[in-house]
């Protein structure tokens, strides 16, 4: 295990349905679509119908929707098509977009069946954000039409003058009521919605114990937990002291005073960015409680499993997580890497890669964020600068 360094597993987001189209996992087309014929699976294997978003080329929707990542300062054009039988939108929650791109029927626009749309905005602020449908929002969210947006910086700092970190770990809390998802047409009255499935990245219970869901860390290499909630519940994350957690940001803005979270409350729609640098050898869990907003009963506790990478018995997935230099202008190197695939921030594969002996030539590439998959296993983000 002495060679096991820089081993981080980006927490694979949710179930296989999420995993496949995740930005870090495979080729993505640049266009999202909305669908109303998908399924998620409960820990026992029971399928539950969902509505949601997916990448057009994948052809299926996921719970939660694909992670969208942008670089601070990027002018974003988010393409969207709606082949589903009802109107949908994309509300870019917390990105303070203008009225035209706000994704609210009545004040901006709906995307009707068969229509395409492009949402335009500038990713001015780094941080953790969300997106979701804003048509009949109470229903469309509980059906699953939501995802996370990350706006990051090329130098792996949380914000200008902020701390550096090694890797992002997106963690999206949500819940659903099975009866509503089974019969959305009969779901009125909406105030009766009472979730009975409580999820982290679309999974719960034993699903979160699978090896691919465990968050691995290397001591001294902080992980940025990107915590966001689309739940109907109030989520309380109970941070064990061994995680050495510090909260730096909320809702895409730096906090005026940092704090070390003990019980971090996350209300519906809120986001927090927490850096953790766990004690060497730590292998434990971060319990996340889901409390009813109506009667303050504890509905469920779901656990994020976190483990020192040195303890893993899995084959190291990649040596040299970030590559170096990163950000880069001309070359980026991953020691011992044999094969590489690269996608740009819109999910388009980069063709004709110049890659030899672990060195990727990026000279002449457009500036921006890219995702590389190394040796078919490990996916990492790197940034090309001027």
């Amino acid at each position, binding site marked *: 295990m002495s060679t096991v360094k820089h081993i981080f597993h980006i927490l694979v987001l949710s179930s296989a349905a999420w995993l496949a189209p995740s930005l870090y996992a495979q080729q993505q087309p640049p266009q999202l679509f909305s669908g109303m014929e998908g399924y998620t699976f409960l820990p026992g294997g029971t399928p539950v119908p969902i509505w949601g978003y997916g990448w057009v080329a994948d052809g299926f929707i996921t719970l939660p929707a694909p992670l969208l990542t942008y670089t601070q300062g990027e002018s974003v054009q988010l393409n969207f098509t709606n082949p589903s039988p009802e109107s949908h939108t994309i509300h870019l929650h917390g990105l303070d977009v203008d009225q035209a791109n706000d994704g609210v029927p009545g004040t901006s626009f709906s995307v009707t069946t068969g229509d395409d749309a492009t949402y335009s905005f500038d990713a001015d602020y780094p941080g953790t954000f969300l997106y979701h449908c804003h048509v009949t929002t*109470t229903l469309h969210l509980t059906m699953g039409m939501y995802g996370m947006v990350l706006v990051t910086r090329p130098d792996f700092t949380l914000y200008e003058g902020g701390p550096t970190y090694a890797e992002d770990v997106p963690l999206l809390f949500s819940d659903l009521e099975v009866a509503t998802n089974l019969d959305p047409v009969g779901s009125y009255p909406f105030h009766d919605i009472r979730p009975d499935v409580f999820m982290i990245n679309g999974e719960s219970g034993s699903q979160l114990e699978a090896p691919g869901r465990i968050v691995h860390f290397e001591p001294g290499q902080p992980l940025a937990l990107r915590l966001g909630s689309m739940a109907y519940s109030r989520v309380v994350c109970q941070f064990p002291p061994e995680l050495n957690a510090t909260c730096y940001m909320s809702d895409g803005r730096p906090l005026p005073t940092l704090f070390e979270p003990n019980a971090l409350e996350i209300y519906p729609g809120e986001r927090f960015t927490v850096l953790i640098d766990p004690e060497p050898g730590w292998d434990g869990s971060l319990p996340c409680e889901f409390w009813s907003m109506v009667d303050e009963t504890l509905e469920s506790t779901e656990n994020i499993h976190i483990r020192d990478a040195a303890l893993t018995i899995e084959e190291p997935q990649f040596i040299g997580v970030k590559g170096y230099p990163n950000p880069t202008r001309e070359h980026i190197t991953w020691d011992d890497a044999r094969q590489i695939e690269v996608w740009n921030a819109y999910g388009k594969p980069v063709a004709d890669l110049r890659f030899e002996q672990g060195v990727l030539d990026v000279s002449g590439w457009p500036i921006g964020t890219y995702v590389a998959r190394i040796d078919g296993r490990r996916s990492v983000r790197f940034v090309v600068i001027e």
Partner: protein
Amino acid sequence: MTFGQDSLYILRGTWNQLPEAPEVLRLNASADWSEQNHVFEREADIASNLVIVNEDTTSHVWALLMGEIEGITIEPGDTAVVDLPALPMGTYRLGLIDGEGSGLGAQSMLQVGLQSGGDPALFHWNLCDWEAQQMTSWSSGSEPDPNAAYVPNYFSINEQTYPTTLEDPNALISVALGDTCWIAVANHGQMDHVLHFHGFHVEVLTSNLQPTRIGWSKDTVPIKKGEGMTLQLVANQAGIYPVHDHNLIAVTNAGFYPGGMLTQIIVDP
């Protein structure tokens, strides 16, 4: 700004927003019925007083709901003069704390050091959740079953439910591009609420239950049950932007969407 005595009338009347509740209680500025509770103002750090007239047919217990003043029982037809302590700038809840009084909605806010009609412009949002069945019990003179599950089905800002929130000049934020405004928010309901601002981040200026969040810039702001909070909004882009509870059962009226705790910010270019 009013420093000293002004009057608050406990009145019983009808409320069009909730058809199931034949009668509700309100705190009004005069003996004339209004379905909206009156919001009071005081200067910061100066003690003052307030006259309370109980025009209702039952006794009620009034309190400044911050734990510093004990409840004062006022019999039907009686008048009480209550002392208000010197308070720092902020938003404070006040109202009736007896079951019927709070259950029927006689709750409002005291704005301290926040001057309406001034600069920055000041708006206020009295938030509340309501269960029609519970309201029906109270308004018919019987106490609701304390063991029954609470299932709120109406949600209001300034005793208005969307879309009539847009007709209330305090619930609807209407400002010019570049303006700064303050919003005094009080949660009188039986559950926490969480306001999401489209288009803007707001800064938390004051809070009695979450003081560690003062100074935070947020687009999604939890307002805990019993909390008074003051927010600052800088209208840095023109347009029409919703503000709503992101606990999405609360953007409904009797179960139907859209409704409830939903309003707008209108920024004129």
